C-alpha cells in the first residue's frame, strides 16, 4: 500500500545537496524521483529510491538527519483531468494531501507521489474500484533497469 520515501533535512549551505547525491551514488542507489521543499534556512529533500533502507543507513552514517516516510504512489494515464479526478476522490474521502510530486516514467503514463494526513488504506478498495492504480514497492524497484 505505502511506499517508503526517503526524507532528508539539509541546510541551505553550498554543497549539501551535492553531498547527499554523492553518498547515494557511492552506495549505488538509484534515484527514481525527488522533490525539494525549501525555506530560507533549510530544505527537505524527499526521494523515491530503489533501496530506501540502504539509502537511509548510508545517509545516517554520514551524519544526516533522515527518515523513511510512508507515501502513496499511484499510476495514471497521461490524460487531461486525471489528477483532478484523484484529488476529488481524496477530497470526498476527507483525506488531506500534505504534499505531492510526480514520477515521470513513460510516454503513456505517469506516477504521482503524495503524502496524506489521514489513513488512506481504509479507502484503498474503494479507490481501486474507482480506477486508481496503486504502485507497490516492487513496482518501484522494477522502474530501475
Amino acid at each position, binding site marked *: 500500500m505505502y511506499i517508503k520515501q526517503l*526524507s532528508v533535512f*539539509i*541546510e541551505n549551505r553550498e554543497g549539501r545537496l551535492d553531498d547527499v547525491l554523492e553518498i547515494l551514488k557511492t552506495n549505488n542507489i538509484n534515484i527514481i524521483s525527488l522533490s525539494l521543499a525549501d525555506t530560507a534556512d533549510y530544505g*527537505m529533500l524527499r526521494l523515491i529510491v530503489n533501496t530506501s533502507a540502504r539509502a537511509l543507513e548510508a545517509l545516517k552514517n554520514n*551524519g544526516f538527519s533522515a527518515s523513511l516516510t510512508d507515501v502513496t504512489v499511484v499510476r495514471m494515464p497521461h490524460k487531461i483531468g486525471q489528477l483532478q479526478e484523484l484529488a476529488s476522490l481524496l477530497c470526498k474521502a476527507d483525506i488531506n494531501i*500534505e504534499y505531492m510530486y510526480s514520477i515521470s516514467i513513460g510516454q503513456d503514463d505517469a506516477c504521482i507521489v503524495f*503524502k496524506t494526513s489521514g489513513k488512506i488504506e481504509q479507502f484503498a478498495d474503494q479507490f481501486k474500484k474507482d480506477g486508481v492504480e496503486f504502485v507497490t514497492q516492487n513496482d518501484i524497484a522494477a522502474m530501475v533497469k
Partner: protein
Amino acid sequence: MIWNETKECMSRDEMSCLQSARLVKTVDRVYHNVPYYRNKMQQAGLEPGDIKGIEDINKLPYTTKDDLRETYPFGLFAVPMSEIVRTHASSGTTGKATVVGYTRRDIDIWKECVARAFTQAGITREDRMQIAYGYGLFTGGLGAHYGAENLGAMVVPMSTGNTKKLVTMMEDFDVTAIACTPSYLIHIAEVLKETNQLDKIKLKTAVCGAEPWTDNMRKQIEADLGIHAFDIYGLSEVMGPGVACDCIHHKGLHVYEDHFLPEIIDPTTLQPVGEDVTGELVFTTLTKEGLPLIRYRTKDLTSINYGKCECGRTLARINRFKGRSDDMLIIRGVNVFPSQIEAALLEMNGTTPHYMMIVDRQGSLDSLEIQVEVEERFFSDEIRELENLSKQIGHVIQNAIGLAAKIKLVEPRTLERSEGKAKHVIDKRTLV
C-alpha cells in the same frame, strides 16, 4: 556512605567553633606572611586581633582575581617557596594566568575533599574510574585523580581528547565511574550510541563539573546512560574540584565547610545576604597553607541553605548555579545567561542541549540567533512541523530570557563540540 562523618555531620555550633578557630589562624598567618594582605588589612584599619571568629568576617576586605593577577605569579603565597610542592594555573582569557600553589598538606586536604565528594556520589574502592578532565595546569585532571586514588578506586587517567579510546576502555575495563565535564559526557554518550556500545558498558556513576549545567541536563544524562550523575564544584583559586558536591538527593551541593567558609553577598552592595537568597558566592579558605584566600569573590551566583540534608550531612548546601557574572551577556540591555537557554531547551520534550547562541549587532540593535540541531527525535519530513518546532523553541526561549530570538534549525553534528568547557556563544558584536 560518608567519608568523614565527624566533619561532614557535625552540629552547626561545633562547625562554627571549628571555623572560627581556623579563621583566626588563617588571618594571623596571612597578616604576617603576605605583605599584600597586610597592606590591605592595614588600609582597612584592621589587626589580626580584630578577627575573633566567623562573626567578624564582614570586617575583612574582599579578594578578587585582580589581586591574584597583580601579585602574579607567587605574590599571595603564604609559605616559603620550598614548601610548595605543586602549582596549577588557570588560562587567562584576559590578561595573565592566575597561578595557585599547594603545600604537601594542601594536596592531602584536596584529596580528602575529593574523596568525600566521590563517596557522596556513591563511589567506593570497588569502582573503576576514568578521569576525563584535562591533566596539566588545569586542576580538574590531577585533582580528581588524587581524590579517586585516595578513595581507593582503580583510576584510569584518560585526560581528554581521545573519545574513541575512552569508550573502548570504558567497555574493556568494565569502567563503573567517570569524572569529566557534563558537555564531554554528553559527547561520550553520543559516541557510545553511535558505536552501539550503550548496553555493553558498566558505567554507574558520573561526577561532572568545571562548567555550569542544569538539573534537566543531569536528568537527561542519567536517562541516556542509565547512570547517576553528580555535580562537583570547585575553582582553582580556592583549591580545584572538590570544594562542594551534590548528594543523591540533589538538593544543593554540600560545601566542605571545615576547609572553606562560604558566604553569599549582594554583588552590588557587597553586603552579606540571608539564607536562600541568591547572590555571589565568596570563599575564605580555612586550612590552606600555600595560597590562603580571604573572602575570595567567585563571581558565581547561587544561594545557600544550612538545613540538615536527608543524606545525614549537616554541611551547608549551595544551590545549582544561576550563572556566572563573567558569562553574562547583555543583549538589548537584558542580562542573559547561556544556562537559561539551556534550561529552556531542555524543558521542551526531547530537545537536546546542542545549540549555539549567535549575538550580533545590526545598526544599533543587538540580534540574537539560536541555532539548534535537528536531531532524529524531532525530525519530521513536513516543513510545517519543522516550522512549528522553530516557533515552539522561540516561544520557550522568549519566556525564559524575555527576548525574541531568531531560531535556526541546523543539521545534526554541525555545531562545535568541545571536550573541555562547552562553547555555546559566538558574540560577533564589536564594542565601540
